[in-house]
Each structure stands twice: as structure tokens, then as C-alpha cells.
């Protein structure tokens, strides 16, 4: 036994995790997210049927849930459950990849503006102001309309390129505030350059970035589904939740499960990511915990 004066302390990340784990909505969200991700990854193994196969376009047309089609079939007799699982792959790929790229891009620009000279800062931030004034959906519609058959990479990139402005602002203001702290000045006083400063600031800003990325995933998944619903995402026959809802729209009253299952999946996924995002925000910002504990009646 060592008789240390202080107990070996958990790292800040460990403490954040224990705060996260204490909140049931966050844990529930995380569980759901993990389940959905797992299902998407394992889709080829667990999907009961080929998502593109049309076994009996007449007899099985929009059949209600039953064995062996647990969630029924769509208008072309394709197995809904299999399509749902494969559709999850698209949604998650777009959501996670786009959010990641957007956050890296926004983080980089935010750091550049926050640590740069006033001229650099002004240039970048006025640029971001202009970009934020442009309607994102219209830009995406216009850009995606250029393709007949949109590749997945293009969708990811386009969504990322139009989605980093908010993060950059957040990071920039955070960096500015932190750079005024005495310990940041001390870093400079000891001979540190911009790279040292980055190293000192990153752990602080990481929380902002992680939370914003997680909350962004939900939004992007919705956005991608919306574009798909408008016929501008991955084209048929590739299943995406958006185009599945689109195909189910005409059958809404005769075979509601065709539109409702992907709709429900979408809702659950977005809520799950948002729960995780909220949980992370509370866990990574100790002051938020104190605030909600103090005035947490609502």
C-alpha cells in the first residue's frame, strides 16, 4: 500500500464517462446506437433475404408482416426487414462520415481563425457568415441534380462541405476565450508556438467538437433521408430509408408498414444519436452538471 496524499485520480475522460453512465437516457441512447450500428455492419449476415430480390411481384405485393417476411414486403415484393437493414448502412455511413469530415474541417478553420491574426480571423469568419446565409438544402438539391446516379462519396462530401460552418464558429469562439487564459499565456511565455498552443487547447475544445459531431449525425441522417425522399440520394433499387418512405407513400393507406417501418427506424436512430449527444454534453461539461443539479426541476 502506498500512502499517497491523494488517491490516484481518474483521468478527466474517465470522470466524464462515469457522469455519462449515470444518466439513463444517455445510456439508453448509446445502447440503441450501438445496436443500430451493429445491425448495419452485420446486415449481409443477418438479413433474411436479398434486399433487391423480388420473389413474387404479384403474389407478395406489399404483403403484411408474416413469416418469413417479418416486416412484410414492399410494392415489388422485396423483404422489408432486409431493406431496412441495408438502408441503415447508407444512413449511418452518410451520417457518421459527413459529421466527421464536417467537424474536422470546421475545427481546423475554427482553430485557424481563433489563433490567427485579426485579419485571418476576420476573413475566415466573414466567409463563414456568408456561407451560413446560404440555404443548405437548395445548394444540395442543385448540386445533386447534376448527377444521374449519385455516388455515395459525393453525398457524404457535399453534406460535409455544407455543414462545417456552425462548428467552425463554435470552435473559434472557444479557442479565443481559452487563449486569453493565464495558462495559455504561460505556454507562450515558456517558448511555445502555435503547435504547443493547439496541444493545450485541443483537450478543452474536444468536448465541444465531440458533442457537436454527435448531435450533427442525427441531423445529417435526417437530411440524407430527406434528399433521398426527394429522389436525389442514392437511386433505386439501392435501399435507403428515404427512398423506402418515398416508395411507401402511395401505399400509405393500403400497406402502411412500407412507409412506417423506415420512418420509425429513422426516428429511433435520430433520437438515439441526440440522446447520446445530450448525454455527452452534460458529461463533458462539468458546469452543465452543476447547473442542471441546481435548477433541475424542469
Amino acid at each position, binding site marked *: 500500500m*502506498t500512502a*499517497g*496524499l*491523494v488517491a*490516484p*485520480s481518474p483521468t*478527466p475522460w474517465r470522470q466524464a464517462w462515469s457522469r455519462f453512465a449515470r444518466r439513463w437516457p444517455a445510456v439508453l441512447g448509446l445502447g440503441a446506437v450501438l445496436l443500430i450500428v451493429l445491425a448495419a455492419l452485420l446486415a449481409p449476415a443477418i438479413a433474411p433475404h436479398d434486399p433487391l430480390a423480388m420473389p413474387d411481384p404479384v403474389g407478395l405485393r406489399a404483403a403484411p408482416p408474416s413469416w418469413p417476411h417479418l416486416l412484410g414486403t414492399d410494392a415489388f415484393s422485396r423483404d422489408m426487414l432486409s431493406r431496412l437493414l441495408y438502408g441503415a448502412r447508407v444512413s449511418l455511413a452518410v451520417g457518421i462520415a459527413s459529421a466527421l469530415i464536417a467537424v474536422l474541417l470546421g475545427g481546423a478553420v475554427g482553430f485557424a481563425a481563433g489563433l490567427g491574426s485579426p485579419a485571418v480571423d476576420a476573413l475566415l469568419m466573414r466567409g463563414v457568415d456568408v456561407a451560413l446565409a446560404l440555404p443548405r438544402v437548395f445548394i444540395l438539391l442543385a448540386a445533386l441534380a447534376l448527377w444521374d446516379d449519385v455516388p455515395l462519396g459525393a453525398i457524404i462530401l457535399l453534406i460535409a462541405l455544407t455543414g462545417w460552418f456552425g462548428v467552425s464558429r463554435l470552435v473559434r469562439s472557444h479557442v479565443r476565450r481559452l487563449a486569453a*487564459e*493565464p*495558462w*495559455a*499565456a*504561460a*505556454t*507562450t*511565455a*515558456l*517558448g*511555445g*508556438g502555435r503547435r*504547443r498552443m493547439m*496541444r*493545450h487547447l485541443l*483537450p*478543452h475544445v474536444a468536448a465541444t467538437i465531440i458533442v457537436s459531431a454527435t448531435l450533427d449525425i442525427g441531423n445529417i441522417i435526417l437530411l440524407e433521408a430527406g434528399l433521398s425522399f426527394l429522389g436525389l440520394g442514392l437511386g433505386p433499387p439501392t435501399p435507403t430509408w428515404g427512398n423506402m418512405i418515398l416508395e411507401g407513400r402511395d401505399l400509405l393507406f393500403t400497406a402502411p408498414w412500407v412507409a412506417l417501418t423506415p420512418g420509425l427506424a429513422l426516428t429511433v436512430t435520430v433520437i438515439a444519436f441526440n440522446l447520446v449527444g445530450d448525454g455527452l454534453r452534460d458529461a463533458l461539461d462539468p458546469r452543465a452538471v452543476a447547473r442542471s443539479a441546481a435548477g433541475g426541476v424542469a
Partner: protein
Amino acid sequence: MSGPLLEIRDLRITFHTAEGSARAVDGVDLDVRVGETVGLVGESGCGKSVMALAVLRLVEPDGIVGSGSSVRLEGRDLLALPAKELRAVRGNHIAIVFQEPASALNPVLTIGDQIAEAVTTHEKVSRREAWERAVEMLALVGIPDAAERAHGYPHQLSGGMRQRVLIAMALVCRPRLLIADEPTTALDVTIQAEILVLLAELQRRLGMAVLLITHNLGIVAEATQRVYVMYAGQLVEEAPNVALFAHPVHPYTEGLLAAVPRLDRKRDRLAQIPGQVPPATAWPPGCRFHPRCPYAWDRCRTEMPPLLEAGPEQKARCWLVQEPERRHQGTEGDGSP
């Protein structure tokens, strides 16, 4: 080197504020010789901290350094150095210990990490070696269980321990000059003494010079060889330690010494210097101390005295040096404005 280690000449720093230009430091000459401890004393707002920052060019771009100013370290003008060479000086040749140990450490990095970083900034050593140096330095500044504590975070340390960590961080590269800006102000009196003893011991062991910035005359008396007294952006007196306390020349120094509580003299109230430091945007004409000076006469209100030789190695910015008889005529002049 025969010249001083640090040679500040005609240092002027101006801040442009909404209330006008503030000449926070206004023509200061100051030397620190190799291995010596120099005190820089003055009230809050007299410009002493700004000076400390200016030596490492940390006031820019908010503060504008005058074109005729120079800060030479072993003959090299720091004010003319390009950014990269300046970074090589910061922390390596000159290090600063700030006055707020609570906020001068990054709360999310371990203390060992932050000290090791100071090493890797300036020397080509492996991370492991830097870490070992950090632990060594922590032990040197008197942190118990240094190897273990190096993995801890700043919030797990007391104020005094944090100040020790900051000192370790400043000294790990063995700088020639340490600037300690109110190193003990935020600490308890007993801890203050410990830190001062530590600084003196480290100075002896590492052979560095120290510029000790403080408003605490007790610390100055104890720790320094020479003292500069600053008032309203200017030096008003410079003297060897003993001479300053034995026979202060400038009325401001006199007032500061009279205001120190002493156990050997009974007194109902502490003496104080009437009035307060004027704002840096509007220094009074003539001698800047005249509105608060008990001896001030006409000449003081119109003519700014230069630093006048008042004894061996002692200089004071006061006309009393030329007209010493006025001191004994007492306070016939109006002391208050």
C-alpha cells in the same frame, strides 16, 4: 560577458485605450547582472508587471513598445528578434513565474506533461527523458512523491504546491534569468516564506539571476541585492538593498517604508501615502509624485526631475537630491493637492 545579463534601456510601453493613450511604462532603464537578485517594487498599476511581460514581448500587440527602447539579453536585443528566435529565448534563457498559480496551469493536462513539454520545446530529447527531467525538477522544488504526483492534475494540488510546479516548469530548462512576478502574492504567509527560501536556494544551485517583482517590501528586504522602485511608469529610485532601507532618498520610497507595519515600534495607525496612483492616461505634469508628496514645492509641479546620483550606486528621481535642506524644513509645502 562583462556587461549585465539583462539590460533594459528607455523602455516605453503604450496602450491605446478608449480613455486615451496610457503610457504604462515610460522610459525605464534597468540592469540585472549575472547571478544577482534584483527587486522591482511598486504599487499596483505602476507598470511593473507590464515591464515583466515586455521583456519577453508578451504585451504585444495590445501594448506598443517605443521605437527607442531596447531589451538586451547578453547583448542581444530581444525587441528586434524574429519570432522563431524569440521563442527559443522564452522559457529557455528567460523564464517567468506568474502570480496566479491557480490559473497558470492547464487544468486538463497532467503537471508532469506540462513540465516535460517545456523541455521538449527547447531541447531535442525523447519524451521519456523529458518526463524524467520533469520528475527530477518536481523533486527539486520539494514536491513529495514527485514521480507519482507528476501524473496528477493541477486541481489536486494546493496553491503552494502549484506555485512550486510553476517554478519547476520555469526552471526545467535552466534559464539564465527568472522573472518572478509577485510569486507569493496569492499564497498564505507561511507558504510565501517557503517559496522564497526555495527560490533563493534554487538560484544558488542553478546560478541564475532573478528579477523579483513585488509590492511587498518585506520580501524585497529579505531576498534582493539591489532594488528598483517604480512609480507611475517610471523608476523613482534605484539603490543597493542596504542603502535603500537605511536611507531612502525618494519621498515615495520613504512613504512605502513608513507604511510597513513593524513590531518594534508602537503605533496606532499605519502611516500611509495620501492619495492614489494617478491613471496612466493622465500623468501629472512635473514630478509624477508631487500631488502625494509631503515635500513638494513649485519646482516639482513644473519640472520633471531626472534620476539623480544620490550616493554610491543610489539614484533617485527627486529634486531633494539637489536641495536636501528642504527635507528638514518639513512639510510647509501643501502635501495634498
